């Protein structure tokens, strides 16, 4: 099992260290050739506009879209934006997941927050019960899910913060910033 982490910009090192903790081999992805031999890909937090610019400049858009058709891909925060089909503004998107996302949906940095989530599917898959502590940073929300995409977790007010479409996963929060490896384990199960 070898998982790539998109390393154009953002907190890719944090994802790599989480993957190492659960014994998964990792690789940094900056160019199309770096996708060779990977079983899955994580797109980290960072700035989605920066990802877009660099992915276009180095011919990564199509290879990433191809990769996502047959492999597990997980986007956290900016990565989730990049994975989505529609964000209501013009910037490069992979359009792999049939979800509509709104950037910076909670406001600016002073509105960033931490909270506990109940994520039944995750608890079932990992055989655990304790709440999932989620860190939101200038976070997007998933406005709506379409087609085969489905909601994995919502806040108490109903706003969607995690979604899944087959082997594709989007979270508007940052499991890589916590000590909790359950989401990474869950993703590995999708990649297997």
């Amino acid at each position: 099992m070898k998982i790539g982490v998109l390393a154009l910009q953002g907190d890719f090192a944090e994802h790599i260290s989480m993957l190492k903790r659960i014994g998964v081999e990792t690789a940094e992805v900056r160019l199309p050739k770096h996708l060779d031999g990977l079983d899955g890909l994580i797109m980290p937090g960072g700035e989605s506009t920066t990802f877009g610019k660099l992915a276009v400049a180095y011919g990564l858009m199509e290879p990433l879209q191809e990769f996502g058709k047959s492999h597990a891909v997980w986007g956290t925060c900016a990565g989730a934006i990049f994975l989505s089909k529609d964000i209501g503004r013009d910037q490069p998107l992979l359009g792999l997941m049939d979800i509509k996302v709104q950037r910076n949906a909670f406001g600016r940095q002073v509105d960033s927050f931490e909270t506990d989530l109940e994520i039944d599917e995750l608890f079932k898959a990992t055989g655990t019960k304790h709440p999932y502590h989620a860190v939101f940073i200038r976070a997007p929300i998933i406005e709506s899910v379409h087609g085969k995409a489905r909601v994995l977790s919502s806040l108490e007010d109903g706003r969607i913060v995690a979604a899944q479409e087959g082997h594709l996963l989007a979270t508007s929060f940052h499991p890589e910033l916590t000590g909790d490896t359950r989401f990474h384990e869950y993703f590995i199960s999708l990649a297997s």
Partner: protein
Amino acid sequence: MEAKTGTWTEKKGLAQMLKGGVIMDVVNAEQARIAEDAGACAVMALERVPADIRADGGVARMSDPDMILKIMDAVSIPVMAKCRIGHFVEAQILEAIGVDYIDESEVLTPADEEHHILKHNFKVPFVCGCRNIGEALRRIGEGAAMIRTKGEAGTGDVVEAVRHARSVIGSIKQLQTMNEEELMTFARNNGAPYEWVKETKELGRMPVVNFAAGGVATPADAALMMQLGVDGVFVGSGIFKSGDPAKRAAAIVKSVTHYQDASILAEVSKNLGEAMVGRNAAHMPESEKLAVRGW
């Protein structure tokens, strides 16, 4: 569970999202858009870039909030703004208008020669400059959630940025070789808080994100800082004081991502036009250096 805002994880976390990126100084909405289009991961809103602050002299203060708000409206990426060292009311104002990060910066004229701001009192995160590990850990002790090595702003000369980055990273390596009983002496000798010295040794890196700043003018400069081991780069005067800002900005963004790939660095370094006019920082009188501000 009640949602919690302004936590240490949140403050430190935003800086983690900026890693591997370039933060650019901009003085108006148009420059901010150019920076965002080039792939900047954040912008620093200020009235004058450091090169102009140097040239103009006088007292340099926090920028007009209206000008910062216009930049916040113009772009979707995080917006930082500078307050003077020790000027906690400027910081309160910047927090009130909702900037994403405050730079308590030596580039502005210090308001307090003894004390930095107690940054734990704020919900908004702070970045501060440092020349060495002691200065870095003192700022973190006061609540800075991100550090940048100071370099010498507004010179276009990378030598001081290299000196400060090497100093910090060298000290972290030195800590790795020390026994537990040597740490208190290290803390005393460097004027660094003991708890943060211990934490730094355990982590084997700076406890918060550490960018380089002060004198980065070319893609090669930016990649040099990355190879030395910083997490990302601030570019101040280097972009909008150059001949072709949009092109240079995009090239520096690429150089930070592909900092280990010399053939890409060669490609992005081609035909960038005039770099900013440099000022030799090593021969500059101490009294003109901005990096000596703060303690």
